[in-house]
């Protein structure tokens, strides 16, 4: 699959000059950072994180066993399970379910995996209308854009831009009051829920012990998407499985706080298969599509911990790179620090050669990660791999000489003297354009510290 991330260098340059975008992002992400910090004050973040990390590590290292257990339980609950190796296979399965049930309209709640496999455009192409019912996703769908954040998809838009969009697309009056806009979206979406024949959702967690799919949300749209139609399809990644129901007690405390600074999201739905005979509502048919798409290839490698991710979005909010370029610049459904890992890992390093380098490695992402992924060290290790595979002759030449120089004090000092002497000439300054186009360079002193030190002037 060819993805836009290949063109990161062009994409980010287009985004970074958009002042309104940067101001929207700065406001929204810093607010999320502050709320997150505030919400963790009343609990012991380090303790919860250690627990969450332990459970996720345990889950990922026993992925095979846990998936079989989940599969058995979910089948007992009446669900159909489908393992999809590739996006193509996942899409084909969902289409097949829709066609067999004569589906014309699908209501869908948030799921990054459906974005990963480009499910909605695929279904539209096949003549099946799929409506995003998460407010942020709905905004993005109306604007014919892609989400720019994994938990707050329309974070790049201000409320005025959203008011303009609604005015243009669904004919609401120009009013940028968030309550008004939400009510308008609700009015349109209620009709869709009533008319829909199928619901699609993601899942935040799959529980091996019980076969449950757990969905965490704030708008109630996921609950409606998964219960108001006869057919419900869950599309999620194989890594989402955790061993026990009681493990949720840890994740429920860290997930909402990490994402939005909430103690708990407004809705937590635990879905256990189709309706039973005693139940009056709920779907009659439930399918769970488990996507691999590169995930299992990370098992047993140094990158395995990346699968621990619970997609909270905290690393995006704290990332100063993300804050300045926004999610669309990454050219991937997974932007920000975790996206710079997941994108090359799922779609191939050749598809995203620049992303692991697009970080100052400040480490704020690792600091806030609720499952303790060493995100910036993972970025560094991806850089190692990419550089080792790449044949950039200039870079190799430079580093080879750097090595030689660092091994020989005499050579090091000589090069220092040369550099100081040559720094006066503009030709040398021109080589440093990527620096000097944006910033001044300090004046080079005529003597190095070593020379001053040796002359005895320091004492």
């Amino acid at each position, binding site marked *: 699959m060819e993805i836009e991330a290949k063109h990161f260098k062009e994409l980010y340059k287009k985004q970074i000059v958009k002042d309104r975008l940067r101001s929207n992002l700065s406001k929204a992400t*810093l607010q999320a950072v502050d709320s997150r910090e505030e919400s963790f004050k009343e609990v012991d973040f380090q303790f919860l994180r250690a627990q969450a990390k332990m459970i996720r590590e345990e889950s990922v290292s026993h992925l095979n066993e846990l998936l079989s257990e989940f599969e058995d339980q979910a089948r007992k609950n009446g669900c159909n399970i489908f393992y999809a190796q590739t996006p193509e296979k996942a899409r084909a399965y969902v289409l097949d379910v829709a066609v067999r049930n004569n589906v014309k309209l699908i209501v869908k709640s948030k799921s990054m995996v459906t974005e990963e496999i480009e499910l909605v455009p695929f279904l539209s192409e096949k003549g099946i209308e799929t409506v995003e019912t998460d407010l942020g996703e709905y905004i993005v769908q109306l604007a014919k854009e892609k989400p720019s954040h994994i938990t707050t998809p329309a974070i790049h838009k201000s409320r005025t831009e959203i008011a303009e969009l609604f005015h243009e697309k669904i004919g609401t009056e120009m009013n940028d009051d968030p309550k008004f806009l939400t009510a308008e979206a609700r009015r349109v979406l209620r009709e869709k829920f009533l008319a829909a024949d199928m619901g699609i959702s993601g899942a935040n967690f799959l529980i091996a012990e019980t076969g449950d799919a757990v969905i965490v949300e704030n708008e109630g749209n996921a609950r409606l998407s998964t219960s108001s139609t006869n057919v419900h399809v869950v599309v999620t990644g194989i890594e989402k499985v955790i061993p026990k129901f009681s493990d949720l007690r840890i994740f429920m405390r860290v997930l909402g706080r990490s994402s939005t600074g909430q103690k708990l999201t407004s809705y937590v739905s635990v879905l256990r298969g189709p309706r039973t005979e005693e139940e009056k509502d709920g779907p009659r048919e439930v399918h769970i599509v488990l996507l691999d798409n590169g995930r299992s290839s990370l098992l047993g490698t140094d990158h395995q911990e990346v699968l621990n991710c619970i997609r909270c979005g905290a690393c995006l909010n704290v990332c100063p790179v993300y804050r*300045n370029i926004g999610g669309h610049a990454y050219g991937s459904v997974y932007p920000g620090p975790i996206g710079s890992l997941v994108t090359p890992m799922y779609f191939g390093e050749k598809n995203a050669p620049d992303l692991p380098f697009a970080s*100052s*490695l*400040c*480490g704020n992402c690792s600091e806030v990660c609720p499952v303790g992924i060493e995100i910036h060290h993972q970025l560094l290790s991806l850089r190692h791999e990419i550089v080792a595979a790449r044949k950039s002759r200039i870079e190799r030449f430079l580093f080879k000489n750097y090595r030689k120089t660092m091994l020989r004090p005499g050579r090091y000092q000589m090069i220092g003297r040369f550099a100081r002497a040559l720094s006066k000439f503009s030709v040398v300054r021109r080589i440093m354009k990527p620096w000097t186009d*944006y910033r001044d360079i300090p004046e080079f002193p005529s003597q190095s510290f070593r020379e001053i030190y040796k002359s005895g002037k320091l004492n």
Partner: protein
Amino acid sequence: MAMHQINAFMPDGPASTHHSTIHGKAGSEFDLKQDYVVGPSGSCIAMMRNFYPGLLQADQRYSQVAAEFATRIFEFTEFINNVVGVEKFTGKLNAVVSFHDSCHGLRELGIKQGPRNILRRINGLKLIELPYNEVCCGFGGTFAVKFPEISVAMADEKLKNFDQTKADILVSTDTSCLMHLHGRAKRKGFNQRFAHIAEIMAESIS
């Protein structure tokens, strides 16, 4: 240093001491078992302390010495606080300063209060904290030249916050953050001063 019976000397190796220091070639006076290496930059120290042992793990010649070396190397303010003893230092300097936490100092080495403890021991010095003082300044090594537009956008945020503090000097423990921020500040016409904490200490005792 001389005041506190610390013998400072500069080894013959390159500034970032990759090979010669670790190999014990640093000069006959240097003893890996009891002497210290001190550096003015959190990034360099983090590299040598946190990453050398891993990088050299498979190398029989260096694995042992890298692990030992990691325990003998200190970032300047760590050294003042944890080895020399910060109480031995007092100074006097009339200045309003702000402090920039370097990411590698902060997150790789856990340096947060140490530099502030030092600054507090300078009479006449007033420290005004930067808003969002734990956000990266945008230097990031090769990142600064690979993605210069992003790098300076981050610097501009930092400079905007610094400007708000109305402080005269931005003090930091990391020379590369300072070079980047100062370079950008000059280009944008800011007049404030950018100084390493060691410079401020030296001025406060002279």
